[in-house]
């Protein structure tokens, strides 16, 4: 079996040659990975492969929640509360729909950007910049959770939304909202702790004898949290 030598060159696969040879090389690559008595994904650090597999399982959990939400929303005969109205805020006398959710979205995207750069500086072995960027990411994450706490408080105290009912319409609104955003907020909170731990260890030089793929693995988790928010934002808040 010929061993393809085009492992991880840092180039997007599509940029080398036409698509046919890309697919061909890829299939040979799969055959050599899975057709031998060695580890599959052998040029991938094991931690990264494991994080990806965990994220796939998490994808299934979040999709089950969102599918459950879809089912109850489709099957209720009571009108669904309009998210645009429910999540509107009045700022300086202006009634702005969904404004807090939009800010939360931008904050999470910004934190993904700083995380991507932290991964980059990690591979350049620039410990200080990596740790500072990860700290910034964690701070954005904390502000996200803070805003979510504000949103929950407003919804529970002022709007009277409960998991079993609300004054605006279908009772299932509260249960799906608290379950989905609560589970996502839990992920963000865990991510903040995770990032702070890794940032501290990077700063202390714990990973000096590694290739700093640990930062990329932490980054994968964080980007996934952002990714889930993209779907929640689309299906729960905008739909």
């Amino acid at each position, binding site marked *: 079996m010929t061993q393809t030598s085009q492992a*991880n060159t840092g180039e997007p696969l599509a940029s080398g040659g036409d698509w046919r040879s890309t697919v061909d090389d890829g299939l040979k690559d799969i055959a050599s990975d899975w057709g031998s008595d060695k580890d599959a994904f052998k040029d991938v650090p094991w931690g990264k492969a494991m994080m990806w597999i965990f994220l796939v399982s998490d*994808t299934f959990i979040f999709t*089950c929640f969102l599918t459950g939400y879809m089912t109850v929303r489709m099957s209720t005969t009571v009108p669904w509360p309009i998210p645009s109205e429910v999540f509107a805020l009045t700022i300086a006398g202006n009634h702005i729909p969904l404004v807090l959710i939009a800010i939360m979205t*931008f904050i999470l*995207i910004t934190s993904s950007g700083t995380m*991507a750069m932290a991964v980059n500086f990690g591979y350049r072995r620039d410990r200080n910049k990596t740790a500072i960027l990860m700290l910034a990411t964690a701070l954005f994450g904390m502000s996200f959770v803070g805003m979510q706490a504000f949103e929950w408080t407003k919804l529970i105290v002022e709007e009277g939304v409960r998991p079993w009912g609300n004054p605006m319409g279908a009772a299932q609104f509260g249960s799906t909202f608290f379950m989905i955003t609560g589970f996502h907020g839990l992920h963000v909170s865990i991510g903040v702790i995770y990032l702070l731990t890794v940032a501290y260890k990077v700063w202390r030089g714990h990973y000096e004898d590694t290739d700093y793929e640990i930062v990329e693995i932490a980054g994968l988790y964080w980007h996934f949290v952002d990714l889930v928010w993209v779907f929640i934002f689309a299906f729960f808040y905008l739909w």
Partner: protein
Amino acid sequence: MEHAEGQQHPIGLYLKIWILLFVLSTMSYLVDYLNFQGYLRWTLIIVFMLLKAGFIVAIFMHMSWEKLALKCAILLPPLALLVLIGMMAIEGEFTFLIRALFFG
């Protein structure tokens, strides 16, 4: 193994994707702000959502530079979820019709 083996890409690429995600998020927010309704709304929401998700996975999570073996192992299994979504959509519609018939 030398550390240059890892994922190294120019910072500018991340900044471009970051700006792109900002623009896409603004556009999906505008779908609500400008009060688009019906199929136009749903299409735009899904298009912007898939574009954002695609850029996050491909660039920020470095999926476009991974080996095809890993890409297939990670990206193909979630497609099974489409079956679940399809079946639950049928179930939801059915329950709605039954409720409308007996309680409506």
